[in-house]
């Protein structure tokens, strides 16, 4: 699932899909933590999943705010439209 999210991040050029792919990647990392914690019977994996959940929530809030700004600025969600930053 992490590989799928990475492929989605690399292939798509729509910012909304890139944010969704980042969600998939964070979720896959959390799944790996929880399954590792279940394998060794420790609670640390679930604690790490809680932190990943926090990071995902913060990331999606800031990312969607940036997406709204990008849309108001360029009337497009194409990330290539925002590549005019010069040095």
């Amino acid at each position: 699932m992490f590989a799928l999210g990475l492929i989605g991040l690399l292939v798509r050029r729509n910012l909304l899909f890139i944010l969704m792919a980042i969600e998939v990647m964070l979720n896959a990392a959390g799944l790996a933590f929880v399954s590792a914690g279940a394998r060794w019977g420790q609670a640390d994996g679930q604690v790490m999943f809680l932190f990943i959940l926090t990071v995902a929530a913060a990331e999606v809030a800031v990312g969607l705010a940036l997406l709204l700004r990008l849309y108001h600025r360029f009337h497009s969600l194409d990330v290539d439209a925002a590549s005019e930053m010069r040095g």
Partner: protein
Amino acid sequence: MEAIFYIAAIVAVLATVLTVTRLNPVHALLYLTVSLLAVAVVFYTLGAPFMAALEVVIYAGAIMVLFVFVVMLLNLGRHTVDLERSWLSPGAFVGPAILAAILVGEVSYLLARSGTLTPPVAEVGPHQVALALYGPYLLGVELASFLLLGALVGAYHVGSRRAQGRTTVGSRSDRTGLASGGDLVRTGADRPSGAA
């Protein structure tokens, strides 16, 4: 119990593939929600019921609501109604509905057989998680609260109207040519000419 784990994992991978490959943002959101619910079932079968509940409540609830809100906020135009009608056609619900029906069947089977099924791994309950979270990981909890506060302030600042008006003054020439037909799924072909 192991069969339920494998079925939920297959549903999760399938829904994720369909999420990444959809061209339509609303369809992709539907499949992403199904994927998160499938991962919640996987968490439950892995002996982490508290994490499964958090996955449903926070990921499939709050974060997906944010995504749907932004998608619906973005295209305010005359052709929005037609666009939404085409997005939410009954055919779009068939795939996610089938995958979600598989998950509902699994959960109802788990509920009907509760107590008789033993998880393949030892269950790590919320009690142990809470003890670990507020014991050795207390500093991490504080840092997470800092992160959430920073995200709150940052999202408010980035999304506020005042900052918007200040920075879009210089880009008025870009906007006039693009004012008609701003579309959510515009591809790279007709991007603004000054952006190349």
